[in-house]
C-alpha cells in the first residue's frame, strides 16, 4: 500500500511507436519498465527522432501505445476517463496556439476545466488557483494580455501557469526551453525546479538543452535509437559516459568533467 502511494506512474512492458496502417506498426521502444515517484524531476534526453515526443504522447493517451500498460496511481490508463487523466497529469506542449483573442487568463482558465460544472463559469476556488498560478510563474503582469501577442518566453510562462492551475501531481513538459533565449531558459528551468522542490510536483520533461537539464534533473531517461532505453541517476550516467554514447556525432564528445559537449 505504502509503495503504490508513492509511485505516481508506472510503465509496465510498454511498447511505443506509431502505426502506418492497421496492420503495419513501427515500434520505437519495446518493453520499457520503470516507475516515477513523487517529487522527481525527470529529464527525457535523446537525439532527434529517438521517439521522446512519441513516448510522452503515449503516456498521455494522445496516441495509443503498441503494447504493455501504463498505470497512474495504480490505475490503468486504458480504463481511465479523459477527465480522470486530466486531474492527474497536466502538460505543456510544443503545439502553437493560433487564436488571436484569448487572453492569458482565458488560457490558464482552461486548466480548471477538468473540475466543476458544465458551464465555463469559474468558481472562487478556480479564480484563486489561477491567480496563484500566475504568481508562481511570476507573470502577474501578463494576466490581461492577449496570449498571441506575447513573446515565446512569456507564452511558456503562461502555459506553465495553466499546468499549475490544473492542480495535478504530475506535469509533463515537451521541450519547455525551446525557442527561448538563454536567460529565459534559466528562468523557466528555475521555475520548474521550484515546482518540484517547493510545491511537491513531479515533473517529466523532454529537452535538447542537455547541459541545462543535467543541472536540475534528479533522474534521467535516456532514449536512443534501436530500442535503447535507460534510466538512472544523472551523476552516474554522466560519469559512466552514457550521455556521450547516446549522442553519437562525428567530432563531438560529451565531456563528463565540464558537463558540456565539446569538439574533439
Amino acid at each position, binding site marked *: 500500500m505504502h509503495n503504490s502511494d508513492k509511485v505516481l506512474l508506472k510503465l509496465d512492458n510498454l511498447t511505443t511507436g506509431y502505426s502506418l496502417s492497421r496492420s503495419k506498426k513501427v515500434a520505437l521502444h519495446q518493453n520499457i519498465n520503470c516507475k516515477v515517484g513523487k517529487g522527481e524531476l525527470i529529464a527525457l534526453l535523446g537525439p532527434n527522432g529517438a521517439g521522446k515526443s512519441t513516448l510522452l*504522447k503515449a503516456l*498521455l*493517451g*494522445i496516441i495509443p501505445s503498441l503494447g504493455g500498460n501504463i498505470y497512474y496511481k495504480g490505475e490503468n490508463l486504458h480504463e481511465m*476517463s*479523459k*477527465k*480522470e*487523466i*486530466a*486531474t492527474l*497529469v*497536466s*502538460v505543456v*506542449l510544443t*503545439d*502553437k*496556439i*493560433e*487564436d*488571436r*483573442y*484569448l487572453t492569458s487568463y*482565458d*488560457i490558464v*482558465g*482552461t*486548466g480548471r*476545466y*477538468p473540475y466543476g460544472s*458544465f*458551464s*465555463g*463559469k469559474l468558481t472562487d476556488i478556480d479564480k484563486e488557483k489561477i491567480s496563484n498560478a500566475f504568481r508562481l510563474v511570476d507573470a502577474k503582469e501578463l494576466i*490581461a494580455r*492577449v496570449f*498571441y*501577442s506575447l513573446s515565446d518566453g512569456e507564452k511558456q510562462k503562461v502555459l506553465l501557469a495553466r499546468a499549475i492551475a*490544473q492542480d495535478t501531481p504530475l506535469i509533463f513538459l515537451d521541450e519547455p526551453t525551446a525557442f527561448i533565449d538563454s536567460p529565459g531558459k534559466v528562468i523557466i528551468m528555475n521555475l520548474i525546479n521550484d515546482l518540484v522542490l517547493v510545491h511537491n510536483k513531479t515533473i517529466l520533461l523532454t529537452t535538447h538543452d542537455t547541459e541545462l537539464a543535467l543541472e536540475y534533473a534528479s533522474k534521467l531517461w535516456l532514449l536512443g535509437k534501436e530500442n535503447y532505453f535507460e534510466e538512472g541517476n544523472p551523476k552516474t550516467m554522466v560519469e559512466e559516459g552514457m550521455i556521450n554514447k547516446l549522442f553519437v556525432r562525428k567530432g563531438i564528445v560529451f565531456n563528463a568533467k565540464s558537463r558540456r559537449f565539446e569538439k574533439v
Partner: protein
Amino acid sequence: MIHNTLHKLSTFTHFCKNKMISRKHTSLIFVLLPILIVLLFLLNIWYGSINISWFDVWDTLLLNETVNNTSEIIILQYRLPQAITALSVGIGLSIAGLLLQTTFTNPLAGPSVLGISAGASLGVALVVLLGGIGGIKFVGTSVLFGDMAIVLASFTGALVVLTIIVFVSRKVGNAVTVLIIGIMIGYLVSSVVGTLQFFSSSEDLHAFILWGLGSFSKTTIAQSISIFIVTIAISLVTILFIKPLNAFLLGNQYALSSGFNIKLMQSVFILISGFLIALGTAFTGPIAFIGLAVPHIARTIFRTSNHTVLLPAVMLIGAALTLGCNLVSKLPGYDASLPINAVTSMVGAPIVIWVIIKGRSMSNA
C-alpha cells in the same frame, strides 16, 4: 527611434482598446443588439411592395380585431413568417459557422465548406430534376406536396453528407483532413447535381435554380415558428459545451489535456452544426456567407474568442444581420425582391475580407 516610439504607442492604444471594450461595453452591446433586432424585425414586417401602416402592423402583432383584412393576411401569411424564418436561420447558420470554425480551428470553415449545403442541393436536385426526368411531377402538381418534398429531400441530402462527415471524423480525428474531405465531398456532390441539371427540362431547371437562389419567403407561419423553436432549442444545447469549445481553441492536444474526449466532442459539434444547416437549407435553400461572416464580426466587436460571450453574441448578430439583409433585398420596391444570396454575399464577402485584413495588421503591429 521614431519607429520604436510609434510601435510603443500603437501597442499602448491597442492595450487601451482592449481594456475599454471590457465588461461595460460588452454589456452595452448586449443590450443594444436585441433592440436592433426588434427594430429590424418590425421594419421587415412593415416594409414591402404593398404599403401597410404601422397601426396595422401593431394591431396584427397584438392580435387586435380592428385590423384591415388585407393587411392582416399579408402580414400573417407572408411577412411575419418570412421575418421569423430569416431570424431563425440567421441564428442557426451563425452558430453552425462558429462551431465549425472552432472545431476545425480554421477561420474559413463555414456551412458551405463541409459539403452539407451541397448535400442538401443534391437531395433537392434528385427530387426536382430526376423527378422531372422520370416523369414524376413533384413541383407544380400540388404546391404543398411539392414544397414538402423539397424540404424533405434537402434535409435528407444534408443529413446523408453529415453522417459521412461524422463517420470520417470519428475515423480520422485530424480536423484539417476532415475539412478537406468535406470540401471534396462538396465537389463530388456538385458534379452529380451538374449532371442532373444537364439532363433535365428547362421548367424543372428553373424550379431548381430558384431554390438555389435562396429565399426566406417560402415558409408558412406554422413552419417558421417550428424552425424558430427548434433553432432556439439546439442553440441552448450548445451552451452545455462552452468549456470544450473554449478548450478546442488551444488545439486538439491541449483540449485533450483539459479532460475532453476530442473525437466525441468533434462529432457532437459537427452533428449540431450540420443539423442547423440542414434545417435552414431545407426551408430556405442555401444561404451564403452568414455562417462564415457572423463569427468573425462577433469576435471583432467583442474582441474575444471565449464562447461564453461568443455564443450569445453570434446568435444576436446572426439574427440582426440576416433580418437586415432580408430588408435590403426588398428595397428595390418591385413585386419580387432581390435574391437573398445576392445580398448576403454582397454584405458578407467584404466583411470577411475586412476582418481578415484587419486581423493581419493587428497581429503584425
